[in-house]
């Protein structure tokens, strides 16, 4: 929410996921109902949506830079490059030097082999704490310590793409991405920023995050099913690897440099309920009340539903009146999986892509029905544990 009233445009999108790379590939795959691409074997019994192969050299030309990144940082730095290219600002060092950046990040990736070797050695050790010191002192790679810092995705983007106007890294799982979009939009609307690179990445192909989610009992352990169809069978999340960045820009700044809008963001709302029964839906209704005045023409609703039992049905209940009123509902997690920090920014990006390229994304299970091209797009995203956000986008 912001008091500012300047018009905010999306002028660049970079997105990579299990469905492909870039705006066109995603539009094509989502309209055709292609995929989903699911790896059922590598992390069995947990399915994941793996990232498509990336030609890293195209966006991260120095091998030395690539080596100092973990997979989530490569995915993110790559997607950031695509977004800057798409906005027509890549390589414009003077402009990038005053371009703001807000990154939604999680934690660094563990080296699964090192962790396994150490935890095994500690099991039978007489003095496990001293052994831990010895093992850590010899097994850890110093250079990769930096990759462990959450703000080093932003740091890498500064180094590789020269975005240096400002650099903030937000955390807190899904809430990180929600705050990132909300903050970028709010600052531009209020005149505190003219142009901002905002987004992040999630690597689903990592054991440490599978472990964290499994500790909470949140994971789907069966064959792939669309999010709406999981709840009846216990529910659960299938995580997906995604990198998504957007270039947000004030209309006046974009016009001055001759940039075209992909879509406009009319408003962003965030909440953080304690998740009693009905809390998330009540928050979403308040958010919708605040945004509904901006809806024009045909509406598509892009949901971040996770597939978690209870929460998913609650969201379905909240969305039903919108569907009954003629809006199309699409749970994009069925197509790209759930990417925690990046889910909300990725949904905003895909909604903008739909508004620009037209057509309608193919239904994937549940009550999703065929539809026509949208004029307005509502993004509704609830975190798997905390955080509720909604954004309204309009066709440019």
């Amino acid at each position, binding site marked *: 929410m912001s*008091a500012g009233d300047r018009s905010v445009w999306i002028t660049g999108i970079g997105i990579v996921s299990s469905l492909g790379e870039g705006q066109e590939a995603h539009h094509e795959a989502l309209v055709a109902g292609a995929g989903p691409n699911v790896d059922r074997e590598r992390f069995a019994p947990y399915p994941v949506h793996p990232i498509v192969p990336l030609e890293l050299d195209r966006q991260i030309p120095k091998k030395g830079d690539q080596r100092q990144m973990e997979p989530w940082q490569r995915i993110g730095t790559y997607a950031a490059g695509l977004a800057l290219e798409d906005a027509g600002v890549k390589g414009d060092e003077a402009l990038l030097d005053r371009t703001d950046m807000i990154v939604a990040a999680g934690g660094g990736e563990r080296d699964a082999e090192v962790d396994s070797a150490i935890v095994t050695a500690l099991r039978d050790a007489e003095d496990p704490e001293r052994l831990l010191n010895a093992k850590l002192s010899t097994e850890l790679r110093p250079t990769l310590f930096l990759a462990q810092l959450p703000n080093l995705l932003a740091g890498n983007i500064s180094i590789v793409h020269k975005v240096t106007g400002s650099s903030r890294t937000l955390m807190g799982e899904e809430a990180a991405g929600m705050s990132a979009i909300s903050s970028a939009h709010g600052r531009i609307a209020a005149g505190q920023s003219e142009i901002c690179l905002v987004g992040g990445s999630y690597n689903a192909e990592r054991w440490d995050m599978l472990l*964290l989610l499994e500790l909470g009992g949140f994971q789907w352990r069966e064959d792939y099913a669309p999010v709406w169809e999981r709840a009846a069978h216990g529910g659960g999340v299938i995580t997906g690897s995604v990198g998504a960045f957007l270039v947000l820009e004030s209309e006046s700044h974009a016009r001055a440099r001759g940039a075209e809008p992909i879509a406009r963001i009319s408003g962003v709302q965030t909440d953080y309920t304690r998740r009693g029964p009905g809390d998330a839906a009540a928050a979403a209704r308040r958010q919708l009340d605040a945004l509904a005045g901006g809806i024009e023409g045909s509406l598509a609703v892009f949901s971040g539903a996770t597939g978690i039992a209870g929460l998913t049905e609650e969201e379905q209940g909240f969305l039903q009146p919108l569907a009954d009123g003629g809006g199309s509902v699409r749970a994009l997690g069925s197509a790209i999986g759930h990417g925690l920090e990046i889910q909300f920014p990725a949904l905003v990006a895909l909604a903008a892509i739909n508004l620009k390229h037209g057509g309608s994304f193919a239904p994937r299970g549940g009550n999703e029905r065929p539809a026509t091209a949208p004029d307005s797009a509502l993004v509704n995203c609830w975190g798997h544990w905390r955080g509720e956000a909604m954004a309204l986008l309009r066709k440019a």
Partner: protein
Amino acid sequence: MSTSGRSYRDRNGHPIVVVTGMGVVTSLGAGLHDNWAALTAGRSGIHAITRFPTDDLRTKIGGTVDFVTAEPFSAPELSERLADLAIGEAVAQAAIGRKGDFPGPMFIAVPPVELEWPQRRALAAATSGGGEIDYPRLLAVAREKGTELHRRFLFGSVAEHLAETYGTKGMPVSLSTACASGGTAIQLGLETIRRGDADAVIAAGTDGSIHAEALIRFSLLSALSTQNDPPEAAAKPFSKNRDGFVMAEGAGALVLESLEHAVARGAEILGVVEGCGEHADSFHRTRSSPDGHAIIAAIRAALDDAGVSPDEVDHINAHGTGTPENDKMEHMGLEAVFGERTARMPVSSNKSMIGHTLTAAGAVEAVFSLTTMREGRIPPTINYEVPDPAIPLDVVPNVARDAAVRRVMSNSFGFGGQNVCLIFAAEPAQ
């Protein structure tokens, strides 16, 4: 405090942002009173680490906060408790809202959160049979171990719990800009009030993450002082014999408020947040660009944002980590902006006494910067025995100094090219 004729807006027409509550905890103690007494007495909080064995490690010292219990220990557990102490003190001083009902959002800098070795070992102990314990085996026992570990080791957990305790409004924002994080939390709060999204916010930074792996990782980067004996002499910012920073724990919290809101409710105004400047460095993951341009840009941006000239800054609360690189680059940045005045201006580093509180540093040092102005006394840079002729500075060596200070700049620089400078003033601008 009279309200007659006062403008509540800055020269850009935005709300003036003031501080109405402060709280702090470091290895020197809990609460501003004890911290300030120790700090101005030139006392160090650095000591031998006893939380885990260190006899085979190169660095054996730190500013752990041992008087706050977090059992079982984990970084998010201790960080949350430290933040709770600091925020509790700040909110009580501000006397704002009602208990558990703070009338605005929270921005909090938190250290990296992930499962730690005690949790991994507990999971490993629950597996059956011999052989290597790999992640699939840990996962196989995970669901039965209950949900507490998931809740505790979510990145958002610290903010979530504190938001519930203090009843802050809206989505709490967790952030990290490495060692500039505390400054960024204040910056985000400042921007939020300026754009009219809130009248009051909590801005805090916390760090309770000294465990074996964190210490060893920084040690492998050769970032830490290895002069373990005596511990209190290890942190030597700006000295010729400086050899790295000393890891430390702590938390700092500010209640920020629009001047209008503070005056309307009759709150005591502790200082003004006049400006914030930021610039990222694209040179290297741990080193500043050799020409210092990003640091210089951040300092200039802060002055611009505050609408003041370099001559109007009385004192610098330095980042001053005591690494060879930081102190050299910080001096270069100051000299580029403050010119020949640099050598005469008091530039002191709290880290000489409290160590580097990492994620919390910007918030902790903001509290000390504001207190410096209120008390008219500048904390010293201790352990300054061997001046470095390459970086001639008045570091307020070893002994606190009485001085009228009306405006302070507080610097925070972090790995990943993060540079944040804050400017605080003693009185609300007219």
